[in-house]
Every structure is written in structure tokens, then in C-alpha cells.
């Protein structure tokens, strides 16, 4: 498992601030990717990203319920303790293509959810605060269920789909 944490998370407030940022950003990213795929006439992948955005939104709401009433620290966007450019669960913006297939999108989602799972596991294993460890372990279990769900979806997708689709209106660029 790759390291996704760049430092120890030592309080419940700090942990929830990270979890909230990660989950909200991830859901929002899937929604934006769905919009982009819709604009670029890839309705199958747009629908998949839309589904993932809805799933992500539910998870973000759950974290928000945990955070309600908590005094969360004000963390600058560049000071979150993860090693990735964005939150660990956010699809990298440069890893998508307008011709990508559902299978590629599912692989990307599995990668993202696995990183989210790793984030919670690493907090659960590394924090000195017992309350943080317990909360992170609970969330890791939920995230693990997401990873399993995506593995099932990927298995159902089959291998027959072409890696890329034909572009009927390609960019005019010499070979």
C-alpha cells in the first residue's frame, strides 16, 4: 500500500476536516467529470461518473453528520496531510480522456477508492489519538465496502470493450 499520508493526524477535528475535504472534493470531481464527458458526447462514461458522484455525495453527507457540532480546524488548501496533488480519493484531472471507456473509468474509480481506503487505514494505524484511530477504522471499513463494490462492477464489465472508441470528428492534427 502506497503512503498517502504526509504527517500524523492527531485530533478528531483535524481528522474530520481531512475526511470532509476528501469526500466532498471526490464527489464534486466525479460530477465535474460527468459534465465534461456529457459535453464531449461520451454518455456511457458520463452516466458512470454521475453514479459515482451520487455515491460520493452520500458518503460526504455521512462525514458531514459526523462533523456536525465539531470545531474543525481551518486548514489551508495546500496544508492537507496527503501526498497526492488533490485529495487521495479525487480522480486526477489529467488521467481522463474524452474517448475513455467505462472500463477505464471504473479502473480509475477503483484506484481512487483504494487510495481513500488507504488514507483511512493509515490514519487508523498511525494516529496517537485512540478516538481518531477508532473513527478512522470505521470509515476505512465503509471505504473498503466501496472498493469491493467497484471490483464487482469491474468484473461485470467484462474484457470485450475496446480500450478506446472511434472518434468520428477527431482533432485535425497531422500524424
Amino acid at each position, binding site marked *: 500500500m502506497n503512503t498517502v499520508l504526509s504527517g500524523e493526524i492527531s485530533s478528531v477535528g483535524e481528522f474530520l476536516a481531512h475526511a470532509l475535504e476528501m469526500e466532498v472534493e471526490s464527489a464534486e470531481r466525479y460530477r465535474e467529470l460527468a459534465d465534461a464527458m456529457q459535453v464531449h458526447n461520451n454518455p456511457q462514461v458520463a452516466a458512470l461518473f454521475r453514479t459515482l458522484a451520487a455515491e460520493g455525495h452520500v458518503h460526504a453527507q455521512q462525514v458531514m453528520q459526523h462533523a456536525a457540532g465539531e470545531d474543525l480546524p481551518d486548514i489551508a488548501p495546500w496544508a492537507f496531510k496527503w501526498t497526492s*496533488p488533490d485529495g487521495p480519493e479525487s480522480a486526477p484531472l489529467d488521467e481522463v480522456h474524452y474517448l475513455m471507456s467505462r472500463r477505464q473509468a471504473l479502473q480509475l474509480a477503483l484506484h481512487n477508492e483504494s487510495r481513500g481506503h488507504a488514507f483511512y487505514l493509515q490514519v487508523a494505524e498511525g494516529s496517537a489519538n485512540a478516538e481518531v484511530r477508532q473513527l478512522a477504522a470505521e470509515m476505512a471499513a465503509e471505504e473498503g465496502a466501496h472498493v469491493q463494490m467497484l471490483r464487482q462492477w469491474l468484473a461485470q464489465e467484462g474484457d470485450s470493450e475496446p480500450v478506446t472508441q472511434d472518434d468520428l470528428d477527431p482533432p485535425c*492534427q497531422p500524424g
Partner: protein
Amino acid sequence: MTVSALKAKDYKSEIKPIWCPGCGHFAVLAAITRALAYLGLPNEQVALVSGIGCSSRIPAYVDSYGFHGLHGRALPLASGLKVARPELTVLAAGGDGDGFSIGGNHFLHACRRNIDLTYIAMDNRVYGMTKGQASPTTAADWAHSSMTPQGTGIRRFQPAVIALAAGASFVARAYSGDPKQMTQLLVEAIEHPGFAFVHVLSPCVTFRPEQREWKHQVHPLPEGPLSDPGQAAQMLHADDGLGLGLAYAQRLPVWPAPHQASATLAELEQEFVR
């Protein structure tokens, strides 16, 4: 922070970007909205001005005042707005063609005037909106456009070095693949009193797919921020164009000077209308 504090999505409009999936401009949009949220700037106190091009569509995607102006004219529009409404936070944005070719002369004089605004140049070294022609920042031997099948044969424009030579008081380079650093640099640029130039490397995945490799090629600038423009220019000139960070920041007099006399419209009429 509370759960109800301003978030980046509070600065995103309902309009869906038409940029190609994978385009670096998505990350610039995310960084701008994160920076505005971090600074807690009210939406109605922010104005985002642009010219023409893929990147210049960005005012439509930000929930603030916006002006999608003429090609190359983002900076004079933004300058006029800031002078007329100094209480606003004014950002100008655009691409390498808009900013350094069509708007190249405006770029020089915006740097020189040092008006308190932030200019975000989203550089992908190509004219993407018109399907992939060489821009001022394209390498001389880039031969992948039917317009220049053997390359342009012209040396690349060096935006950050030129900005320093023209008198800019804040010069930084960011990369869309490092949104954390880009957000931090944008916050510093917005807070900087004077003309802040943020040169953003923002890959065009459609016409310059090889720019996806930038993620393995970018590197921190060897030092910075420097306070001597000559040293900063020397450092940037020696760089391969992929060095990231704040190269130069210096407090210089901001135009217009705060002591400048002001007059009401009625007073002006009395002076000029007889």
C-alpha cells in the same frame, strides 16, 4: 473552520466547462476557486477578466463578476476596472497566444504600471481553440501543425523573464498538476500589492498530448523568492521553463498612487464644460 464556511464550489458557476477532459485548465479553475474560498472574498467583490481562447472562457465558470473581452485585451480591461473600482479584487486570465502574442504589448505595460491585479497566464504552448497552431511559447522545432510543418524556427517567448524586464513586482510559475502549490501561489499573488504575474503550465492534452509528461519533468526553481529582478531573470533564463515556485516578489509603488487627486463628475464638468 465550520461546516458552513465558504468552499471552492461556492465560487463555481452553473455553467459546465467545455474544455477537453484532461485539460489542465480544470485544475486552474479549481485552484482559483480554492484561493478565493481560502481568502473568504465575497463573490461580488471579485472580477475575473479574460480575452479570447480556451482558457479565456474561465470567467463563465466562476461565480463572480466576469468579462470575456476582446482577443489580447484582458489586461487593459482589467487595468481599467481596477482603476475605476479599486475596492474590487481583480483577476485577469488567458492563454499564451492571447497574452503574449495578440496581447503582448499590453502585457509589457501592465507589468510596468504595477496596477494591483493578478494575471494568470495558462500556458499550453499552442493555440488550442483554433485546432493546434504554434503560439509564442511553442518551441522553434515543434512541427506538428500543418501551418508550420517544419516548426516556426522562432525562439520561444519567455513570459516570466519578460515580465521581470518589464517591471512586474511578483513573478511565479505554477503547474496545473500541482494544484496545492498553484493555490498557494494564487493566494500570495492576490494578496500581493501590485501586478502579480502567475505563469501556469497547463497542458493541452488534445493538441500537445506529450505535455502529459510535464508531471515527470517539472521541478522546483533553485531559489526564490528573490528580491533582485536581475538575479531572478538570470535564474529563470537558465531554467528549462519547467521550474516552479515564486521567483520574485518586491513591494514597488502601485499605480495609481493613493495620493492622486480625485474629483466628482460635477467638478469635472465645471472644469471642462463651459
